């Protein structure tokens, strides 16, 4: 079992590699007959931001949604071969409790999707469905999550207003806070800023940067500048294949693969 694309020790700098949290090996994934991912192997490291970039339809979202088995919701989606291990547990094992997995691996979506409840209830939702009812516990978690999501200051006086009254960027940060409330270790974000304007985007990016102290984050983005800004490691996908994966600096400054280079410098297509 060996990584096809391995970070050259020299390039990863002299610092020690953090432990891997997600290990993907030789993953083939298909929707019905059409294969969407081909033989992908990579490692996602702890407390780093890993960005997936690549042209539309290259399978970024598909790959991301493998990590918390959101693809289970699509009937024809199927992992043909390969394994995904999170903390050394094969998450596609029969014995896996998907619910627990999803608590462990939080997700934030492209379009912010706050529930039409109050801000407080949005955050408390995740705990409530786990049966936590004690209001003191809820209160403190809501506060800490909102603080982590850098939203506390903006909403602390209107926790009981509807979350739909927030602006787009605030909604997206609320969704992040909501995901934090179930205490995940890993956060997946599928184009979290694509519907936001530059200022809101900046705030979310700031937040991602903040969060990486405590969480392992995987983020899909169409915006190369964003990947460059927020991520520690970047993976470039094309036509369902992982073309290059390495530290973000390397990908943007000295990509090894000419396709990667063409893509990041806008010559691609």
């Amino acid at each position: 079992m060996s990584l096809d694309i391995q970070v050259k020790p020299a390039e990863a700098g002299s610092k020690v590699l953090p432990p891997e949290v997600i290990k993907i090996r030789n993953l083939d994934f298909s929707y019905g007959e059409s294969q969407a991912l081909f033989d992908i192997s990579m490692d996602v490291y702890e407390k780093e931001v890993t960005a997936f970039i690549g042209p539309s339809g290259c399978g970024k979202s598909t790959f991301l949604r493998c990590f918390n088995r959101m693809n289970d919701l699509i009937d024809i989606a199927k992992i043909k071969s390969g394994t995904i291990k999170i903390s050394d547990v094969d998450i596609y094992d029969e014995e896996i409790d998907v619910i627990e997995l999803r608590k462990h691996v939080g997700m934030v979506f492209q379009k912010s999707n706050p529930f039409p409840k109050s801000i407080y209830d949005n955050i408390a939702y995740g705990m409530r469905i786990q049966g936590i009812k004690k209001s003191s516990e809820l209160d403190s978690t809501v506060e800490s999550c909102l603080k982590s999501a850098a939203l506390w200051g903006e909403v602390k006086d209107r926790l009981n207003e509807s979350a739909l009254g927030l602006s787009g960027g605030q909604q997206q940060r609320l969704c992040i806070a909501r995901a934090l409330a179930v205490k995940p270790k890993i956060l997946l974000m599928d184009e979290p800023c694509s519907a936001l304007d530059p200022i809101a985007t900046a705030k979310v990016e700031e937040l991602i940067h903040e969060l990486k102290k405590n969480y392992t984050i995987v983020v899909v983005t169409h915006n190369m500048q964003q990947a460059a800004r927020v991520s520690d490691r970047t993976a470039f996908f094309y036509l369902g294949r992982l073309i290059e994966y390495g530290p973000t600096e390397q990908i943007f400054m000295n990509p090894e693969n000419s396709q990667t280079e063409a893509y990041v410098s806008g010559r691609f297509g």
Partner: protein
Amino acid sequence: MEGKVIHRFSKRFSKKAFFENLILNILRISTYLVILFAGFIFLDIGINGSKAIFKSQAPFINTDFLTQKPETLHVFEPKHIDKKLKEINAKILSTNIENKNLSNLAIEDSKKNDLLIKSLQAKYHVLDKQRKEERLLFSDTEFRALEIKPSKSEYVYETYAYSGGGIGPAIIGTCLLVLGSIAIALSLGVLCAIYLSEYSRPGKVLQIIRLSILNLSGVPSIVFGLFGFGMFVLFFGWGVSMIAGWFTLAIMALPVIISASEESMRSIPKGFREGSLALGASKWTAIRTNVLPYALPGILTSSIMGIARVAGETAPIMFTAAFALRDQLPWEGLEKASDFIFQGVMALPYHIYVVSSKIPQNEYTENMQYGSAFVFLFIVGFFAISSIVLRIRVRKKYKW
């Protein structure tokens, strides 16, 4: 157009604009035509019907009409007036015929005849008023209670079925039918809708289910009536009974409720479900906490529409649940509790059908006919309007 600068964007007359206006107005007229026609029906039934419903003194509402059982109306009209009226009528008729037979040349004569007719009509009106004052009207019970019946030599005696009393049992029967059937349809429909919108996977089975629902919604109500008759009344041996009506109506309302509920569940953004699942909710939890609560207003709204539809139908209950006349209220004279659901009831729609097709239209029956139609329209309209208003509100409130 002097003094105006003609430039690239300046307005010019064109055939196109004229034609456009023309079409626009044609469309506008056709829209208002529909509105007027329907409005006329509302007005006609409203105005004539309110005569039966409202009174000039307190409590202003004719509660008797709304609560009492239908009875036969016994009418005694004074014979002497009746005779005179008939004579005048005959005269008018003959003059009319004469008028028609006159050739086009005899303008003078026809004018004279017209005058004659007019004077006759005036006379008729006076007499008619008198007749109305002198005639005697009794409902069945009143008539039976009479010690001395009016003599037949002085009065022309006629009876009119259903025209006395009120329509109480029909109102009650309709309400019972609607409540029961909606309860059945709603519980089944919502379950079905949950499956379709949340659990179903595209495939043969789903296709068949959808096709069935679609077809079910198009099946004519009379066929539901036939089916209910064949299955519930005869095969299950329930007889003409409320429960047979319930099930027949429920099955009829089912497609409406299923598709409306499904639609309102589908209109909940996918993000709500995904968001919830991604937080570690099980599928059912996600539905329970994040789909149903938001879909509920929509479901209720459309089920009220279902109520309106169910309440308005006649054909399905004609041979399954409705009696033309039943002078006992549903809770009267029951031997066993189960008899309650195994009895036929009166229902407003069927009642209206009966009184508008089986008895003559005249001044004695008209009031009751219009009154029933008005009450019925009011009940159904109430549900319909509340559903429409609710929907507008719901749509405004929930925008995601």
